[in-house]
């Protein structure tokens, strides 16, 4: 139809989540601002929201013009930040929500290429999101597809551009999703407030038969802390990740995937932790989650996870 022609400008609401970092120090904000002048006139309407999760708040100084700021001194983590941004994006009729972590480096032509992809997929109702190629320390980390029963993961090759028929999962940073689609799938799950919130979104998109455009021509560099267990993941964080993983499998996946996770936990405990140079404090965490999966029912695990979420929320509210 005539109205399916590309409509400019592409209206993007970008949210950058800060944590114990000044806006001026955030490479994501700096590179995003640097990418804006590269846009053609009338190509895009970009607004930026800085969502500051620094506990206790911080003084941010003067912000660049047009940048909105919201402090959440209770650290509502990612899902609260994204859902807050989603509300604004919807109220102000933005078409796309771009989610960014503070430590993502965007190329100078990021917005040009992203707008080009957005204009292309905008008339396709079944396409809900755009996932650029993300690498961390020279290694591709996103997007990827998962084989049947989540047994194996395979990354899309460098340069692949398109809308695969397979399921597509991508990390949050530099991921851009249609506001209407995100609203339709219920936004970000607040129970997965940090770890696995990207996989939950990916899963909900697949469940609703929505597809993801893999923008292999957009290369983004991101520091993915979870792949550096030794230096960047404390035993406490490791426990949070394990807990989110357990809950994700119990909440969204079936029995066969549960068995796959069990095998993965065994592999992690017997080989991967050792290979990654983990200290002895990580092994009890790994063992505990393996035993939980072996000896506790799904119902029991879910109950204890929901109680722990409530406990966390109560602690934050009391602060």
């Amino acid at each position, binding site marked *: 139809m005539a109205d399916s022609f590309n409509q400019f*400008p592409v209206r993007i609401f970008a949210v950058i989540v800060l944590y114990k970092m000044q806006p001026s120090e955030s490479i994501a904000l700096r590179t995003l601002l640097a990418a804006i002048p590269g846009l053609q006139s009338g190509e895009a309407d970009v607004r930026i929201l800085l969502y500051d999760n620094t506990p206790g708040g911080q003084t941010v100084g003067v912000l660049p013009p047009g940048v909105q700021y919201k402090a959440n001194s209770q650290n509502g983590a990612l899902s609260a930040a994204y859902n807050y941004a989603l509300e604004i994006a919807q109220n102000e009729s933005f078409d796309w929500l771009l989610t960014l972590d503070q430590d993502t480096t965007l190329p100078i032509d990021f917005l040009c290429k992203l707008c080009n992809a957005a204009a292309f997929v905008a008339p396709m109702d079944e396409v809900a999101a755009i996932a650029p190629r993300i690498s961390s320390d020279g290694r591709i980390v996103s997007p990827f597809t998962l084989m049947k029963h989540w047994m194996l993961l395979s990354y899309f090759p460098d340069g692949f551009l398109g809308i695969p028929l397979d399921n597509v999962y991508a990390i949050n940073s530099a991921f851009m999703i249609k506001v209407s689609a995100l609203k339709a799938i219920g936004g970000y799950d607040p129970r997965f407030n940090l770890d696995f919130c990207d996989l939950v979104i990916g899963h909900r998109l697949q469940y609703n038969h929505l597809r993801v455009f893999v923008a292999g021509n957009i290369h983004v560099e991101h520091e993915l802390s979870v792949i550096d267990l030794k230096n960047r993941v404390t035993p406490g964080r490791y426990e949070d990740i394990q807990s989110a993983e357990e809950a994700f499998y119990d909440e969204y996946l079936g029995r066969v995937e549960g068995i796959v996770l069990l095998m993965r936990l065994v592999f992690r405990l017997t080989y991967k932790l050792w290979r990654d140079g983990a200290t002895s404090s990580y092994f009890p965490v790994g063992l505990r989650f393996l035993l939980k999966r072996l000896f506790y029912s799904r119902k029991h695990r879910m109950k204890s996870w929901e109680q722990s979420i409530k406990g966390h929320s109560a602690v934050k509210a009391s602060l």
Partner: protein
Amino acid sequence: MPERIQTDANDRVFKLLAVVVLYKMKPRESVCFNSLQTAISNVQPEKAEIRVLLYDNTPGGQDTGELPSGVQYKADCENGGLARAYNYALKIAQEDGFDWLLTMDQDTTLPIDFLCKLWCAAAFVAPMPDVAAIVPSISSEGRVVSPFTVMKYWTFSRRIPRGFVGIPLESVYAANSGTTTKVSVLKAMGGYDTRFRLDLSDFVMNHRLHCHKLRVLVAGNIHLEHELSGQDLKIRSTPGRYEEYLHAEEGFCDEYFGRAVGLVVVVKLFYRFVYKMWRHGGSLAYSKIAFRYLCRRVLLSQKRRMKSWKELVSRRLVA
């Protein structure tokens, strides 16, 4: 930052020359021409500059009757085949500043939103210098026939599934009809190879694109219905046409590929002679032709075959 010319994104005009090749058919009887006219009426005139060229290969010419305004007509009473028609269109496209050339057969049915979707795809790939063409998904009698990828040494072909939209990393081959190619790319490659006047002219063009490391956007969101004359031997092909096809195939393999592909062709010819002829209901005349080409490949040297093919091409050109 690369220097960019500041133009308004909404001012981009889709400049397309569409060539429909007629053969023993009046323009008003061509389903392609009629559906193209309908698709044009569905496009906002300020967004696109679309011109239609009817290239009539009817031997001896024909009375076309009154043509819709803006439609260009060219009669080639000698029936120069597809390659000559496309090269003629390419010349006009270049002289008149068109960016894209859409090639079509008379018996392709276009959907009403064909040009709108094509425009979106063209706008998407326009800034990508490594993408040369856009190919839709083509079905014939309910079966996807184009585009497809071929495995190493042309052993097997794999149809790209319906609904896939993207730029695969593999070599993509597609039928001429419905293919839209950048005029600049066609010109840089010297246009269509006139030695392949009809059969395999699409394969030759695709192969040359891949040799130049140029990629193709598979627009699986655009579905065309097309009658492939070579598919049903009994109803739509003649022994003469079949021989012409086998000759073009022989020329294509000898010209562009090595010994390994040659061996694969021997196996394919044998399979065709023994099984496929019987399955498609080919008569003795077809079997004789297939057998002759099988013997040629087994008994004659590549040099000899090439020589005879070149002589045939020269004779045709002189005629």
